[in-house]
């Protein structure tokens, strides 16, 4: 599939006399293929919004290469802007205009037919409240309006930064369906979100960023598989057999953690080998369950942002690739 969005070695440095130099983006890479719903994940302050702003020409990069829909940006932004719909960070609109006025003015500026305004208002569920001033809207309604503004120009690439922020559960589900429908219609969607369950449900692929660098990317299944620990939980017919089973499995080189009624095994390549080993010792398995990792645990592991009891993690305290003992990216190099 052709790439709709490519970023290579993107760098952005902020210099401050008081706070010194901070690399918001430190050689960041990203690739999104056409027709995908792509999740863009990272802890607070990791560089997600900076990446999106840079990509959309709002921030000037200090280095690197960016390509949108086959055109190098920011030079070709005027050419591709009409095909890229985006909301960046929280939705911001002039509070005294109605939703219809807001969209109508954007449509006018972008030479989009006025009829499209009502179409997107219908699509995001704001049709009946379109005449009210934006300042009376809830956060969720503003979010819907932001999505409507991004959809206004029927983009080929839709970039949404935290689109579910402020939405009620029904709204989140609607947003999920909308994203899937848009992707099925051929639109590529880049979705930045902290609701990792949602990302796992609707995204085909993900990129995880930490401290301005990519720490994992690829199809969701692959990322999960590559960070699966091979953990397996087993129960035996008789609880009294657990010590013998522990001894047998340890001898076979499997790391075992005992629990009152079950054992947790780590480093198991083939679960079938466990049943065979135990059966040879007349120990019979009543339950064997591979422990599946989810995106949240992979995210917390990769970005080292899992909460630690008694500690208060500060923003920017997260994982950077390339350090000793730190995990590398889940995939290969640029474009893999």
């Amino acid at each position: 599939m052709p790439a709709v969005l490519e970023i290579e070695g993107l760098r952005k440095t902020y210099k401050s006399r008081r706070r010194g130099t901070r690399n918001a983006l430190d050689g960041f890479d990203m690739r999104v293929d056409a027709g995908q719903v792509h999740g863009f994940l990272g802890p607070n302050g990791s560089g997600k919004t900076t990446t999106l702003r840079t990509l959309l020409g709002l921030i000037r990069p200090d280095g690197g290469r960016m390509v949108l829909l086959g055109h190098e940006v920011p030079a070709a932004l005027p050419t591709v802007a009409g095909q890229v719909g985006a909301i960046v960070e929280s939705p911001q609109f002039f509070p005294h205009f109605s939703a219809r006025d807001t969209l109508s003015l954007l449509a006018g500026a972008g030479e989009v037919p006025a009829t499209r305004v009502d179409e997107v208002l219908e699509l995001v569920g704001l049709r009946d409240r379109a005449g009210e001033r934006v300042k009376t809207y809830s956060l969720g309604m503003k979010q819907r309006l932001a999505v409507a503004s991004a959809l206004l120009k029927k983009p080929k690439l839709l970039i949404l930064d935290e689109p579910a922020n402020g939405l009620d559960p029904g709204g989140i589900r609607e947003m999920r369906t909308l994203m899937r429908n848009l992707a099925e219609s051929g639109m590529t969607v880049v979705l930045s979100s902290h609701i990792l369950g949602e990302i796992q449900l609707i995204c085909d692929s993900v990129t995880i960023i930490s401290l301005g660098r990519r720490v994992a990317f690829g199809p969701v299944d692959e990322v999960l598989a590559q960070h699966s620990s091979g953990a397996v939980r087993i129960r035996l017919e008789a609880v009294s057999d657990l010590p013998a089973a522990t001894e047998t499995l340890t001898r076979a080189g499997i790391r075992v953690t005992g629990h009152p009624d079950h054992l947790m095994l780590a480093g198991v390549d083939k679960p079938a080998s466990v049943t065979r080993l135990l059966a040879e010792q007349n120990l019979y398995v009543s339950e064997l369950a591979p422990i599946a990792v989810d995106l949240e645990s992979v995210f917390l592991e990769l970005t080292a942002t899992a909460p630690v009891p008694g500690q208060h993690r500060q923003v920017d305290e997260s994982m950077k690739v390339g350090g000793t003992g730190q995990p590398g990216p889940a995939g290969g190099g640029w474009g893999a």
Partner: protein
Amino acid sequence: MSLFRTELRRLTKRRFTRYMTLLGLLVLAAVVVGVFFTNQKIDAGQLAQAERQADQQYQEQVRWSEQERVNCEQAKAAGTANDGRFPDDCSVISPPPREEIQAEWFLPSTFNFRETFDETLIPFAAILALVGFVVGASFVGAEWSTGGMMNLLLWRPKRLTVLLTKLAALLTGILAVTLPAAVLWFAGFWAVATFRGSTEKVTSGVWQSFMLTGVRGVVLVLVLTTIGFALASLGRHTAMALGGVVAVMVVGQFGLGILLEMANVRWAEAWLLPTYVLAWMTKTVTLQDWNSCNATYYGSCEPATMDITWQQSSVLLSVGVVVILGAALWAMRRRDIS
């Protein structure tokens, strides 16, 4: 062109624009109505009455000065200590010449179009310039502070084009208000002069002079609108422009004025911006240095003078616009938008 039309539509949709424009126009209307009701047409009877009152006052002055002269001589003859009430030479006590007491002092106020209309163009330009300044500042400042500018740049990524198109729409809007207002201003005061004063001796030359002053007024409105817009864009907030003006007026004008006064600086007013604005409208402002003496043929001193001309003002206004708008454009092009 679509962006220009959209920005024009955005400008007119804003309530602040509507209310400020309405307020400015109401103030202008109040000035015209106020002048109308505080002036009267003078007839021959009122003129004759004024002449009589002037004569009467002259006679009173003659009687008073004669009485004072007599008192002076009596005091001198009695050898009373001169406490400064009378001069040494009592003969110098004399009434003022008759022509010094003018009949028009005793006339009600009347609006002479030829002599007075020029002055009315100064408040006209000042009020509309103020409206233009705050509307211009708010138009772009609110866009920055509410995220509207960022949204627009996601649609039209050419930053300078966007900012300059907004400015063009703003100036077009201001011009669309100012020009009809100017026509109404001329018409309004012509009506005031017709019904409450005089329209005599308004020659084509006078009209030409008024028109040129009017054009300078319109230019002043556009210049201050541009400066308000540029300052707010530079600070990315309406308050930047309004705060800047307060700072300039308080620190730059009152503060500087007091400092220059204390330092006894010659031509202190030449350092103050309102002098140049006034010179722009009146063509010339003549400053006087009362700490100097230019001897006259009659043995008296005249203060030295310095003229501030509208040409000098035009240079100052041009430099101001170029520097402030240039800085706003530079910042728009270079600064990150976050």
